[in-house]
Structures are given as structure tokens and as C-alpha cells.
């Protein structure tokens, strides 16, 4: 152990009570910073998982045609010529749906980041049970394809996917819709679209947790949906799953340019919710950082008092050959010791409370369904909390340390030190 560190350790005991108060502040500040970040990002991650598990990472929909081009031409220059055509993104004419889904899917498979594709035909229907009728949206899917781009298999709450797979008349009904129509697995349901009325059977009830989906969406086999909605060809959209979800915006731009279809990433689709989560996270971080800041002020006060109390000791050390840098280091070590103990304590407190909170029962429905507080374990929360505490505590230690280093031993011993 370095000698200056050894001296700093002993000086710590000189103002035990105020040091402990500063230490407690840093422990609580770091701990609560970690807990709030774990919670806010936990709910954000849960929301992202939910929306990726229902609507996929990218949705390819609506073919477009460019209506305006910017044309640039350069004249002859030593035998070379140049002619450029640049598409204007704002000047597009959209044609609803995907005209040739097989062709588009074939092209999509060439993107390295694509892990799954599902062609979907969507349309509005009236769902008529023996109890009442409700407006609903039918999603015609190929089950195996759709399972590869969603968490549908995990979202089944009643019934068996096997029943749906075997029966062409099978339906997957959202939990909220099933509740409204008082449907149970095995019940029949009449679906009405245009003049067509057909009877189907509820094979499964699913729950995504997203109220807007569970209240309206009914999955059925693609062929049946085409027949019911009278769409013999094409698709409403293609749902795309990715290996790396964070690359969705770049992939969507590339897909749109190559395929000449609108492509929307999950980040664009859910931008308002994601912004709300970010704002919440920043707000929580700022609020909790005030605890660290106040502890830093306490730390500054404690160290400043310690410098005044220890002027004689500083003079002794200087008379023994300890340099100004040594004296400064001793007080910086004091800050570093409190920071280290405070940070480690904060980590333990943060991790313990995060774990306890993750077991806390709550019932959230709406944008997702959760039965407990959602937490996200990330080393970054610990790193950012530590950096915040380090900046505050070490800044608080620097000024008293510099003041201590500036003291003149002769003045102190002579008794005229200010």
C-alpha cells in the first residue's frame, strides 16, 4: 500500500460522522441511479421485445413509384461525360400493398441480416359470435413463416397451435377480442367481409400484451384470408425478422431503395414510445444524480474541514519531506477511498434493490402486459453511475487537496497560517 494511501486511510477516521454521511449519500445515489435505470430500461426493453414479437423488426408494404427525378448532366470534358439521375424521396406515388410477394421475399432473403419473412394479407371484418359482433382485423398468415418472425407461439394463452395448424377453419383470436365476444377455444365464430359470411372455429386465444392488438387482431390461414377478403394475389405487407435488430433503420432504407417498396423499421414505427422511454430514463437519471451531487457537496465540506483540522499534520508531513504533491495526493486518496467504498456499496444496494423490484408483483396492461416490475440488467448502468459519482466526488476532493498542498509549513508552525 502506498504511504500516502495509508495516511489517507487514517485521516478518514478523523471525521467519521461526516465521512459516513457523505459515504451513505454516494451509496444511495449510485444505488438508486442503478435501480431507476434498470427499471426504465427494463420496461423499454420489454416494450421492444413485445413489439418485435408481434409486428417484427421491419415491415415491407406499399409499392411506390418515383414521380420526380433530379437530373444532373455535365458537358464533355476531355472525352468523358457524366449523367446522373437522383430520385427525390418526397416525390413518390404509393400503390397499396405488395404486388408480387414471392419476388420481394426472394430479394429480401439476400439481405444477410434477415432471419425470417412472413407474407401477410390483412383486411377488416365483422366478427360475429353467438353473444355479439365486433369489428376486427384479419391477418392471413402461413403459420410456420409467421412463427419465424414473431413470438406468436409464446403468446398462446389457451388452446393449441397444433389445432390451428391442422384445421383450415381455425382462428387465433386476441384475448381482449375473445373476452368481448365471450369466446372460448372450440367456439365457432362467423366472419363477415363484403357479402361473404363464413364460419370458423377458435383454435387458440393469444395475448401479446399490446391492448390495441389483442382487442382487434384475428390470425387465420393465408389461403382462407385471401378467399374471405377476396384478394387472390399480392400481400398487404411482409413482416421481416432480423438477426441484429439494431440495424433495422439502415436495412429498411436499403430494402426500400432496392425493392421500391416502403420499408419501416420498428424504431420508426414506435418512435413516439421510444422517445417517451428515453425522456423517462434521462429524467430519472437527472433526478437521482442530485443525490450524488448533494453527497459531493457534503464531501467537499468534509474535506475542506479536514484540511483546516489537519493543518498541523500537513506541516509535520511537509517538515519530514512530504512534497506538495504528496499532500495533494493524500486528500485525493481520501476522495477516492470514499468513492470506491461508496460505489461498491452502491452497486450492491443497486443490484439488491433491482433484484427485489424485479420480483415485485404489479399488473400493467396497455402498451404491454407485465405481471412484475420489468428490469434490465446492464453493466452500462453501473458504469454510468460510477462515472457520475467519480466526477462529483473527485471534483469535490480536488479543491481541498489543492488548498492543502498550498499550505506553507513554516506559516503553520509559526502559528500564522490563515
Amino acid at each position, binding site marked *: 500500500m502506498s*504511504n500516502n494511501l495509508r495516511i489517507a486511510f487514517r*485521516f478518514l477516521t478523523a471525521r467519521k460522522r461526516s465521512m459516513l454521511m457523505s459515504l451513505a449519500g454516494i451509496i444511495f445515489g449510485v444505488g438508486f441511479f442503478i435501480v431507476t435505470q434498470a427499471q426504465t430500461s427494463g420496461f423499454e426493453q420489454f416494450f421492444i421485445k413485445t413489439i418485435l414479437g408481434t409486428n417484427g423488426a421491419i415491415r415491407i408494404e406499399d409499392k411506390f413509384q418515383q414521380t420526380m427525378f433530379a437530373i444532373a448532366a455535365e458537358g464533355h470534358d476531355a472525352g468523358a461525360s457524366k449523367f446522373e439521375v437522383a430520385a427525390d424521396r418526397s416525390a413518390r406515388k404509393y400503390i397499396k400493398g405488395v404486388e408480387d410477394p414471392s419476388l420481394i421475399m426472394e430479394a429480401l432473403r439476400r439481405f444477410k441480416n434477415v432471419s425470417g419473412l412472413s407474407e401477410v394479407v390483412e383486411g377488416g371484418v365483422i366478427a360475429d359470435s353467438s353473444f355479439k359482433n365486433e369489428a376486427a382485423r384479419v391477418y392471413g398468415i402461413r403459420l410456420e413463416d409467421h412463427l419465424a418472425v414473431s413470438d406468436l407461439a409464446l403468446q398462446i394463452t389457451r388452446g393449441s397451435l397444433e389445432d390451428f395448424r391442422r384445421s383450415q377453419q381455425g382462428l387465433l383470436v386476441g384475448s381482449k377480442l375473445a373476452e368481448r365476444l365471450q369466446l372460448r377455444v372450440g367456439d365457432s365464430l362467423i366472419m363477415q367481409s363484403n357479402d361473404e359470411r363464413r364460419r370458423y372455429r377458435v383454435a387458440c386465444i393469444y395475448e401479446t400484451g399490446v391492448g390495441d392488438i389483442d382487442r382487434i387482431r384475428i390470425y387465420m390461414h393465408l389461403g382462407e384470408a385471401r378467399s374471405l377478403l377476396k384478394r387472390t394475389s399480392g400481400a398487404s405487407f411482409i413482416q421481416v425478422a432480423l438477426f441484429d435488430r439494431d440495424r433495422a433503420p439502415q436495412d429498411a432504407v436499403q430494402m426500400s431503395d432496392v425493392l421500391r417498396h416502403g420499408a419501416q423499421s420498428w424504431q420508426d414505427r414506435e418512435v413516439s414510445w421510444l422517445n417517451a422511454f428515453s425522456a423517462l430514463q434521462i429524467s430519472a437519471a437527472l433526478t437521482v444524480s442530485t443525490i450524488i451531487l448533494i453527497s459531493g457537496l457534503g464531501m467537499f465540506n468534509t474535506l475542506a474541514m479536514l484540511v483546516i483540522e489537519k493543518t498541523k499534520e500537513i506541516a*509535520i508531513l511537509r517538515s519530514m*519531506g512530504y*512534497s506538495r504533491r504528496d499532500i495533494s495526493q493524500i486528500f485525493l486518496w481520501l476522495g477516492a477511498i470514499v468513492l470506491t467504498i461508496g460505489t461498491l456499496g452502491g452497486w450492491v444496494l443497486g443490484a439488491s434493490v433491482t433484484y427485489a423490484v424485479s420480483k415485485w408483483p404489479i399488473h400493467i396492461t396497455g402498451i404491454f402486459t407485465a405481471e412484475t416490475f420489468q428490469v434490465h440488467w446492464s453493466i452500462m448502468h453501473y458504469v454510468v453511475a460510477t462515472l457520475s459519482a467519480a466526477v462529483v466526488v473527485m471534483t469535490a476532493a480536488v479543491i481541498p487537496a489543492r488548498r492543502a498542498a498550498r499550505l506553507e509549513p513554516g506559516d503553520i508552525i509559526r502559528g500564522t497560517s490563515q
Partner: protein
Amino acid sequence: MATSSDIALRCENLHRYLGQGEGRVHVLRGVSFAARRGHVTAIVGPSGCGKSTTLYLLGLLDQPDAGTIWIREQMMSNSSDLERTAARCEHIGFVFQFHFLMQEFTALENVMMPMRKLGRLGEDEMEARARGLLTDVGLGDKGHRLTTQLSGGEQQRVAIARALANQPAIILADEPTGNLDVKNSAVIFDLLTRLAKENGQAVVLVTHNPDIANRCDEIKPMRDGEFC
């Protein structure tokens, strides 16, 4: 006659002003002085005559406004703060009137503190030397005690052991017995002079006590910032 190798410390024509503006006082008015190895010099004089100021200048704790200071033939009066700090560590041991021990440390740790800074010895060697010094000052069995658990005389003996820790060429003592009773004063003075003479160290002490001064090898009376 003293040869230059006998001289551990010397100064020439030291001037020092203290205070500012109208309160500025010319405390030292051309002090010249030399301290020989194995020799005890007492600086005596009335309060405010500049004894302690001279001692702090000689100990490189303060800087003169004019004049020169040599420590072992190396001129220190115009050296940097870092050089003066290193010289204090290696060549000078201080004993103050109020012992100035570090209260959070044991007697043994206080004695080891200058050695730790100098860094010439390993941990075991430092501890052995510190124990030896504490034994020399009669505190061999009290090394583990915090300094607050020692009497005033014992604390001053720890301060002497600490001043001797790095085997400095010069011991500077500012009223080392000023805070002690007669019996303890004699013990401390004997101890300081015996150990310094054994090790060939130059001792310069400031005192008001005529009994102590009379037992020194040389007395330098001071008045109004000058040696008489």
C-alpha cells in the same frame, strides 16, 4: 578549527521580513551561522528576536528574503520547493515544542513515517530501525500505542526518535523542552544530545531555558534579529 567537511549547515547574511504593508517587520537582519557535526548549538534570546524564524529558514521550511543557506555544501536558499522538500527528508530532522505527532498513528508508525517517505529501507528494515530508535529513547515497549495514549514526555521522546529516523546530518529543535517539567526537560535534552553526538549530527536548538543552553557546546545569543 572546523574543516568544511565538519560543517553540516551554514548560512550567510540572512534577511527575513514578515507581515505586509505597514505591519511589515524586518525580523532577521543579516544572520550568519555555521553548525558543526557532533556539536550542539543553542540559540537564545527574548521572545520575538527571530530565533524560531532563523530555525525555520535553516530547516528550509521558509525562504529568506536575502542571504544564502548551504546544507552539506549545497546551496539551498535559491532551490525549488521540491529540492528543499527532498533535502528536508534526507538531511534534516525536526523536534518542535509541541511534539506534533500524528494522532491517528502509533508511536512506531510515527517514527517510520520519514523512512517511508525516503524509501531507502524495506518495510521490515524500517520497522526494525524504528523499534531500535524507540528503545534508544526508552519507549521500546510502547511502540504499538497511539500517541494520544502517551504522556507529554513520552510524546516528545517519540518526536526525537522520529527526527533521527532518516539519520539526518542536522537536527533542528524549537524549544524541545519548553512544554515539559524540569525532570523531563533534562531527560529529553540528554537524550537528544547523546544520540546526536553518537551519530555525528549537528544539533541546533532554540531555547529559553538557561540551564539547557549552558549545557550546549556553543551558545548564540540573539537580539533584534541579529546574533550578538
